[in-house]
């Protein structure tokens, strides 16, 4: 099942399960979704549950948050998270902080979802990763699926969560098929928010990643195993609250840490992981400084060769592993 179909199935199941759930965003209804994630849903659920909005991010995001405050469970789609910047005040100040400011009186059960980060040749203004921006803010939950199971389980868990959840999908992953376990095919399949998954067991080095980069880590691991290096690949699944314990447990085992992400290096997800490892028990188990692989510290260029070299590739991961292990 592709990530797209998994998301579609999750939306369908949650819309069916709870009357209060509805989807709003640009082109989500009659166009079947800009990236076809909501295909068929408007036909099935109609205008009340699947709402096409005008191009008014700040307005419709505020509307989604207000609806959540009044007892509905909206799913607010951003065509890409780049456009969420126009509405970021509503996400952080209205959605993220209200439960705290009201001392628990006003919960905001809203899901903000859409593609995040780089795509292919879409240029600088359409390629930014917002994991660090939203991950910075208390009051929000931030999830970042990689596989179809991640996508389905995390979306369902996000909709059922009573808190504002930012779900950072990836456009290049939408068309990628994955095996779905028996369990994952159930209508009540949930992936817990706040728990990382070990995608591959290993002993020599820990590779921590989220979203598309998880795939690159697994590819690198497949190459490295031929040289006798066993990589442990940790799929974060959730950016906030981050499952630091899983990373620490892995580092205690492997003694080496490399973080891999698509976002920019400064103040990013990898930076946070390194800081947290320093503060915890795993620091004493490191045999080498922790390493970060990130997007290049530039706005995303258009030309293919330039764009490719602005994101961590499999060869970069392999290089970093060998450098860290001194081989």
């Amino acid at each position, binding site marked *: 099942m592709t990530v797209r179909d998994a998301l579609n199935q999750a939306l369908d199941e949650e819309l069916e399960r709870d009357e209060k759930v*509805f989807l709003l965003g640009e082109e989500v209804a009659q166009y079947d979704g800009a990236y076809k994630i909501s295909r068929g849903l408007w036909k099935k659920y109609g205008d*009340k549950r699947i*709402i096409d*909005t*005008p191009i*008014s991010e*700040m*307005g*419709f*995001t*505020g*509307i*989604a*948050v*207000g*609806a*959540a*405050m*009044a*007892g*509905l469970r*909206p799913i607010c789609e951003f065509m890409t998270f780049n456009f969420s910047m126009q509405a970021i*005040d*509503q996400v952080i*100040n*209205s959605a993220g902080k*209200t*439960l*705290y*400011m*009201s*001392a*628990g*009186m*006003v*919960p905001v*059960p809203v899901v903000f979802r859409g593609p995040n980060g780089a795509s292919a040749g879409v240029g600088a203004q359409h390629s930014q990763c917002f994991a660090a921006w939203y991950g910075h803010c*208390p*009051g929000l*939950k931030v999830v970042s699926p990689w596989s179809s199971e991640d996508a389905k389980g995390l979306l369902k868990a996000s909709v059922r969560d*009573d*808190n504002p959840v930012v779900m950072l999908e990836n456009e290049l992953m939408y068309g990628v098929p994955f095996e779905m376990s028996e369990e994952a095919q159930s209508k009540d399949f949930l992936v817990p928010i706040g728990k990382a998954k070990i995608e591959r067991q290993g002993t020599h080095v820990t590779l921590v990643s989220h979203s598309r980069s998880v795939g690159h880590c697994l590819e690198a691991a497949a190459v490295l195993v031929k040289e006798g290096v066993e990589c442990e690949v940790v799929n974060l699944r959730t950016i906030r*609250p981050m499952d630091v314990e899983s990373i620490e447990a892995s580092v205690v085992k492997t003694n080496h840490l490399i973080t891999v992400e698509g976002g920019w290096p400064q103040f990013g997800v990898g930076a946070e992981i390194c800081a947290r490892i320093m*503060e915890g028990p795993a620091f004493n188990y490191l045999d080498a400084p922790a390493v970060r692989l990130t997007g290049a510290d530039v706005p995303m260029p258009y030309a293919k060769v330039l764009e490719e070299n602005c994101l961590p590739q499999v060869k970069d991961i392999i290089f970093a592993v060998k450098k860290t292990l001194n081989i």
Partner: protein
Amino acid sequence: MRKMLLAALSRVLQGPAAAARPGAVSEVSRVVVASRNYADFTSEATFDIKKCDLHRLEEGPPVTAVLTREEGLHYYRTMQTIRRMELKSDQLYKQKIIRGFCHLYDGQEACCVGLEAAIKPTDHLITAYRAHGYAYTRGTSVREILAELTGRKGGCAKGKGGSMHMYAQNFYGGNGIVGAQVPLGAGIALACKYFGKDEICLTLYGDGAANQGQIFETYNMAALWKLPCIFICENNRYGMGTSVERAAASTDYYKRGDYIPGIRVDGMDILCVREATKFAAEHCRSGKGPMLMELQTYRYHGHSMSDPGISYRTREEIQEVRSKSDPITLLKDRMVNNSLSSVEELKEIDVEVRKEIEEAAQFATTDPEPPLEELGNHIYKNEPPFEVRGPSQWIKYKSVG
């Protein structure tokens, strides 16, 4: 006749615990004083109210309003309570017992009391940061409001919100970011329509906020989807230090909704506000979509307690509004001149209100601050307890929703 009445009242008031009620005697005499005049009061009167300017409407709210004695006394008491509460807040702020931002509502009382008089408790309301009056009319006690301002655990948000973040049932604050509450209000209206329970949402903003882009995005969606939302612009002539003429190319705020019908209302006359709101509420409830109301009002204080309020307007102007258009005086004069009440009766209400405010202030200044443990709470709802990081890795707080 009066003797019988007195005797009956004494019996009723004394009741089973008469001996233990020190106030019983004075209560009786107070009631007797009132009852002496009761026969002299009328039960209701009809008043002419200013005609509203209309935009895209053939007819507007009625030009007369009926005020019952009961309603009048209630409105008077409520407005006076808000007035005194705000003045007490001024005092506490100058004593540095209230910190940070404090935006006072005195002068605008007819707006919040008039709006509330026209809607039901099951309707919804959201406003910006000049919200103490609304926190009160939507059901929060003066005690809880003042204690929130002083940052104590007995505050309506346990001291964690402060002046701009007070909430109650069907009252969504208290919002600090200018204009952000307007899309929120339309979202609440969307929920009203979605649930189909005939409820509406009053979405308030000021003349300053009226120039925010997100408000126009909201007008568009509210009209498109016929959301049961009354957009209400409280035009108090100044957005902080900027007069309306210096901020807006069009100061006809009731027309700014363009395709949305609008009315301009005398916001200093509580009956005008009430009748206009009833009119707008009827429009929304009948499924016709949103409406816009501009309430022309005035704030006596500056924008906030940091603003003396006289660098951009004259003391004469403030004084003129106070002497000619004060909402409480307007109501008082109407009631006294039409035998709905007397100067003495209203004075008694003043005394009671003063007492209530004093007691609330006493509570607000003696209640303890929230315990340090509260710092980490209310990050997530319905979440098993977890740890929240403090200023260093060694300082952790437990968080429960």
